[in-house]
């Protein structure tokens, strides 16, 4: 049994979101220490506000200001905060019904321990010092130790609000990040191990006899496990290709000088082509049928590129089933 490899895989991207009128007013309001909700067709005040009525589906736009204090409707203790959560020390996740609202908002409550938290307790917003128009403008909630402040919006009744602010926030960035432990499985682990010796190992399907490179451990056509290892290559044939003239953002080709040739190469003995760059020949002289071999660099896990072997070109009929 080969050692099965694993490696961390982080998927991370700063997605952007246009807010539309209602979310724009809500987030801009937070920047101004003002919490807005929206009144639904049944008169209930929804906080955070929705664009469309949860009962009738009609567009709802009647904004109201609610209080900065409220009541915990339920909660859960978070003993081990993770990256990106509102507080770095243990805290309670709370649903808070702000004064004047009919629905509850999810946020964090800064409390010394679970014994200090209970449903029905009074809490108030702790505003972030730097506010940008984001849900994190509410740093967290904290237990209300004194009587509520008697300022606008802090009473129990919502106050009509036009949602107008100077310099409104219209879009936000919402970074997403997923942390995985990735394992390519036994077949690919064997393949990767063999590459360290500069050998390419495919696997043959016991049913259709096709040789898969890289191997996936099963034949996708027959649905059976592949277990017979077969060394293929190192030489192969260019079955088809394109000439890449642009560097694409967010792909791995930023360090490669353009133009270059991106080719499908059927290694001798393999029944499907793998993809690689062609070098050692002017890009405009690459052709279908060109015979090539791998070129390794000292630190590369894969061949850096393939170069012509100098053999005569392969006959089209010998590889036409592979394109």
């Amino acid at each position, binding site marked *: 049994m080969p050692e099965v490899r694993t490696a961390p*895989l982080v998927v991370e991207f700063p997605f952007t979101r*246009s807010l539309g009128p209602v979310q724009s007013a809500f987030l801009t309001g937070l920047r101004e220490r003002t919490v807005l909700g929206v009144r639904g067709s049944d008169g209930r005040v929804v906080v955070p506000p929705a664009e*469309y009525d949860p*009962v009738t589906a009609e567009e709802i736009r009647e904004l109201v200001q609610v209080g900065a204090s409220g009541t915990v409707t339920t909660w859960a203790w978070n003993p081990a905060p993770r990256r990106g959560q509102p507080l770095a020390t243990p805290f309670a996740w709370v649903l808070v019904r702000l004064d004047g609202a009919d629905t509850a908002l999810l946020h964090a409550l800064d409390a010394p321990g679970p014994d200090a938290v209970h449903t029905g307790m009074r809490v108030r917003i702790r505003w972030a010092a730097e506010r940008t128009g984001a849900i994190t403008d509410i740093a967290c909630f904290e237990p209300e130790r004194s009587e509520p402040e008697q300022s606008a919006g802090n009473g129990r009744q919502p106050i009509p609000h036009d949602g107008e602010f100077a310099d409104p926030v219209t879009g936000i960035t919402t970074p997403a990040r997923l942390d995985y432990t990735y394992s390519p499985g036994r077949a690919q682990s064997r393949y990767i191990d063999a590459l360290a010796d500069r050998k390419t190992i495919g696997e043959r399907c016991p049913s259709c006899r096709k040789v898969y490179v890289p191997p996936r451990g099963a034949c996708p056509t027959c649905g059976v496990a592949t277990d017979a290892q077969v060394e293929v290559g190192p030489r192969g044939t260019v079955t*088809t290709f*394109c000439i890449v003239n642009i560097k694409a*953002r*967010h*792909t*791995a080709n930023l360090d490669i000088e353009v133009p270059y040739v991106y080719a499908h190469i059927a290694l001798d003995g393999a029944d499907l082509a793998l993809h690689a760059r062609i070098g050692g020949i002017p890009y405009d002289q690459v052709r279908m049928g060109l015979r090539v071999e791998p070129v390794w660099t000292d630190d590369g896990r894969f061949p850096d590129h393939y170069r012509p072997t100098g053999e005569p070109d392969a006959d089209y009929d010998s590889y036409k089933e592979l394109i």
Partner: protein
Amino acid sequence: MNKAATAKECVAVVGIGQTKHVAARHDVSIAGLVREAARRALDDAQLTWADIDAVVIGKAPDFFEGVMMPELYLADALGAVGKPMLRVHTAGSVGGSTALVATNLVAARVHRTVLTLAFEKQSESNAMWGLSLPIPFQQPLLAGAGGFFAPHVRAYMRRTGAPDTVGSLVAYKDRRNALKNPYAHLHEKDITLEKVQASPMLWDPIRYSETCPSSDGACAMILTDRAGAARSPHPPAWVHGGAMRSEPTLFAGKDFVSPQAGKDCAADVYRQAGITDPRRQIDAVEMYVPFSWYEPMWLENLGFADEGEGWKLTEAGVTELDGDLPVNPSGGVLSTNPIGASGMIRFAEAALQVRGRAGDHQIDGARRALGHAYGGGAQFFSMWLVGADSPAA
């Protein structure tokens, strides 16, 4: 049981709505975007939210747009409260398969009237990044989406002997068709064939002008049964056949130029619809052509031309708006590409043609039209054939 109780219900398209597709809709949230298309579909059908029994939505893979559950986030915008709501995933073909899942719910008499919708806001994401996740131990994709497809185009040219001008003819045609479609993203009023042919070669043999744009947009349809169609204020489009097929992205023996799953999917649709000669019996085609060369490739894959002959139809002008097999009268994916919605736009545009409601890009007398979508690495296929006449008639 009698036959009436066991036969499938006939399904009609009675409402169609699209947003004006553009590079960036910064003025609306995703909820606002889908709402706009859904509202227009309801208005077209003269129905209200209360008339809808279920909602079926589709979008591009999550990484294209952010990790999200649109079926959760968009339930209120789509009036789905208290109703079944389903999400469909099939990569770029998702708009087509979403419409077919909705169709099947009506055909099976599970629901009488279904809202189906697909969307994408490419401006708030990066599809190229979504396709290039840095998977450990795997060689990174070195060339981008065009680099993935361009070698298959070269293989098609080699296999058929097509002259290298065919791709530019498709792009020139589709961009001119888009000028007649107010919802199309690209409106290149001064487009010329010379400009297409002079545009930079990005992934030789694919030129910049032969690639699709990045768009924000949504498309919605209302599907209903015979009773619903009888109340429709405008002529319905009737679903005469619909099918989906899948195959692995990579397997030994895969024909990347003309995938077997595409052939099988088309054959199933034609069998259901009683089509024996697609070239003559079908009046308009909306096919998924993200790079111009896929028009002649799909003409062969879908049975409109013999193997090796597709490019001759394009070259002879058969697929032009005034040709005898117009392809992508709307301007197609080459003019509008909110990826998650692109398949549904093909299906909806086919329906608009047989309803006689396609406006300036209407094909006179269109009675039968094919909508086609594909996605993944030519892995998923979905198609429907819609007609002006009820299949029961």
